[in-house]
């Protein structure tokens, strides 16, 4: 009898141990989902696995290469949402206000985030996300072409005059066929022309209305056109762009995008670096500052767990991997400081990280309270396209764009 009791107790204990090892036990750990691109898998998968192995309050399930928007549309929103400064307005009811979670969290060290980046995803007083990467407009330059043209590399003190002189000197032709461009052109979106407008003292939005008809904005638009038509240092829409900056035959790119770094570094022959933008017509400020951030879906069944996961994937530890393995510009001051502590000569391209992180304080975010992307792309950009074609003058462009954009805004608001 005693023997059989012992046997029974042993069996129960064994069964309990076995049960703890089963997925049923794991099911007690809240699982939260997030979509990440496949290109990040090698860098992040080991970190996520290690996190999941050491945490009992949350496990992160990454949907590699998934389509976040489609999942949300299908009412299968991931728990963690990839958002950004230009998206928080439209997603204000989809994203959870993280403020109370941050207040309770003693490990987050929210002051470690660059304030400008943290504020950019704060909407109507609610912290809707935590930033993890950013882009700021910079001057990208091809060292090989500068060396070949015997032109000194751009400095932080460059003016528009220096920029034009270098751009013209580095534009070369064989007969009428261009063999290299001094500066690339960004067509089809606001990435470059809005910087020129802002550096000339203009703005897209002033006192709640579009103000591209101001003399300053028109001066900025004029410079954007003149790069092609007057100074002849940039390709027009009909010219051969020679593969753009990554093609290795374009000496400079005005504005650029940090999202293009992997493709630039993927070209082994491309030796490149960055510099702060030259002083424009009025100011050196005006570079666009944009960012991406992780937020928590209001539809998540595990909001607290999702917050814990967001806190991890925006932690200094995780962002260090993001920077070292993927070179995605990070949003925490401590990680940036560690990157800046590496001697310049030992850094891979781009080496001038002082310009990158310095750009956070000098860069300007885009309007968030209005459907900026929609109005700019559908209404303003077509007129800028026509200006580049030569169909409209910069003044006509500024005037028509202002009237059309303000009309569109009045309908949408």
């Amino acid at each position, binding site marked *: 009898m005693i023997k059989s009791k012992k046997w029974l107790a042993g069996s129960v204990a064994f069964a309990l141990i076995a049960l703890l090892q089963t997925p049923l036990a794991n099911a007690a750990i809240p699982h939260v989902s997030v979509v990440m691109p496949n290109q990040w898998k090698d860098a992040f998968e080991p970190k996520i696995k290690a996190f999941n192995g050491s945490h009992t309050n949350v496990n992160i399930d990454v949907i590699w290469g998934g389509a976040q928007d489609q999942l949300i549309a299908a009412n299968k929103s991931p728990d963690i949402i990839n958002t950004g400064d230009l998206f928080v307005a*439209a997603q204000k009811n989809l994203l959870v206000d993280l403020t109370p979670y941050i207040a309770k969290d003693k490990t987050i060290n929210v002051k470690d985030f660059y304030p400008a980046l943290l504020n950019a995803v704060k909407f109507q007083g609610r912290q809707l996300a935590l930033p993890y990467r950013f882009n700021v407009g910079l001057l990208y330059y091809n060292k090989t072409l500068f060396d070949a043209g015997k032109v000194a590399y751009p400095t932080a003190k460059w003016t528009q005059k220096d920029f034009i002189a270098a751009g013209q000197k580095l534009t070369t032709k064989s007969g009428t066929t261009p063999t290299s461009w001094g500066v690339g052109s960004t067509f*089809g979106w606001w990435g470059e022309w809005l910087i020129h407008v802002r550096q000339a003292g203009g703005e897209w939005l002033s006192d709640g209305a579009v103000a591209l008809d101001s003399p300053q904005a028109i001066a900025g638009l004029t410079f954007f056109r003149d790069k092609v038509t007057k100074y002849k240092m940039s390709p027009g829409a009909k010219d051969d762009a020679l593969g753009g900056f990554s093609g290795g035959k374009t000496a400079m790119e005005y504005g650029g995008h940090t999202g293009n770094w992997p493709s630039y570094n993927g070209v082994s022959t491309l030796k490149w670096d960055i510099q702060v933008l030259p002083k424009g017509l009025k100011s050196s400020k005006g570079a666009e500052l944009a960012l991406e951030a992780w937020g928590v879906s209001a539809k998540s069944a595990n909001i607290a767990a999702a917050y814990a996961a967001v806190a991890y994937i925006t932690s200094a530890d995780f962002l260090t991997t993001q920077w070292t393995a993927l070179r995605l510009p990070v949003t925490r001051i401590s990680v940036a400081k560690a990157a800046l502590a590496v001697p310049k000569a030992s850094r891979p391209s781009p080496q001038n990280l002082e310009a990158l992180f310095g750009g956070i304080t000098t860069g300007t975010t885009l309007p968030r309270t209005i*459907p900026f992307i*929609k109005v700019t792309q559908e209404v303003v950009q077509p007129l800028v*396209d026509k200006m580049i074609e030569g169909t409209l003058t910069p003044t006509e462009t500024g005037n028509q764009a202002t009237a059309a954009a303000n009309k569109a805004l009045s309908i949408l608001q």
Partner: protein
Amino acid sequence: MSVRNRKDTRNFFLFSGISIFGFLAFYVYPIFRTIFLSFTNTSIMDPLHDFVGWKNFKRAILYDDVFHLALKNTFKYAIFVAALKLALALLAAMLLNNKIRGIGIFRAIFFLPFIIPTFAVSYVFRFFFHPANGLVNQMLKKVGVEGIGWYADSKTAMITLVISSLWGFGVPMLIFLAALQQVPKELYEVANLDGATRWQQFRVITFPAISAVFLFNVILSTVDSLKSFDLAFLMGHGEGYPANSTLLYSVYLFNQAFRNPWSLGYASALALIFFVVLLVLTAINFGLGRLYVKNEN
């Protein structure tokens, strides 16, 4: 109900059930859902929404200048593409209706473009029409003609899109070919004996004989060109580049629903307006068809 009838009914539901379910789930439900959404301000990214009555329809019809431009572009595109595609398809079908050696190979060659993905087609045409170093402008240069901007110029981008869209005339061609093969050869023999010219033979024999199929192809090509999406999306960078010149209705509708600010409600209203437009145009086509379709009897 007899046993036989019960069995028939059971078999009817058994065999047609899947397609009835598919029809209800993938056609009927989306239609009713679209009608419902069109009266709301639903956004994919916003779980909250309100009923807005006819606001979306009013905005589209009365105020949205970009929508009006997209509509105009679509009509322009559809008229040219449908007309040219039909003409090319009929011409090719008539050529392929001849009894010559290796005709099967020629038929396959003409149909082949239809099965090539639009993605690849758009890249090929971008290579052909590149303003600086594209094949077409290089050839024009060789004969001393100055090339044009093609897809990079708002004045010529629509023409480029129309030319690129003519690529896939394989389906209407096959339909024409099938109809042409039904025309009795004796009619042509008699016409030849009477000394009728090729044009007279086409006008009096061929066209009346295939007029019903012609109407079918007109409707098919018109609807097909009006709802064209992929090529315009790819060649216009998804935004009707340059200067909204290639912005078609379907591309605009897609952008409203699936790009910031993801206005699914407004896009649904646009879809319903489009449905009405298609309905009217199809009715017009049927009306015009009465003028030229000859009854076989």
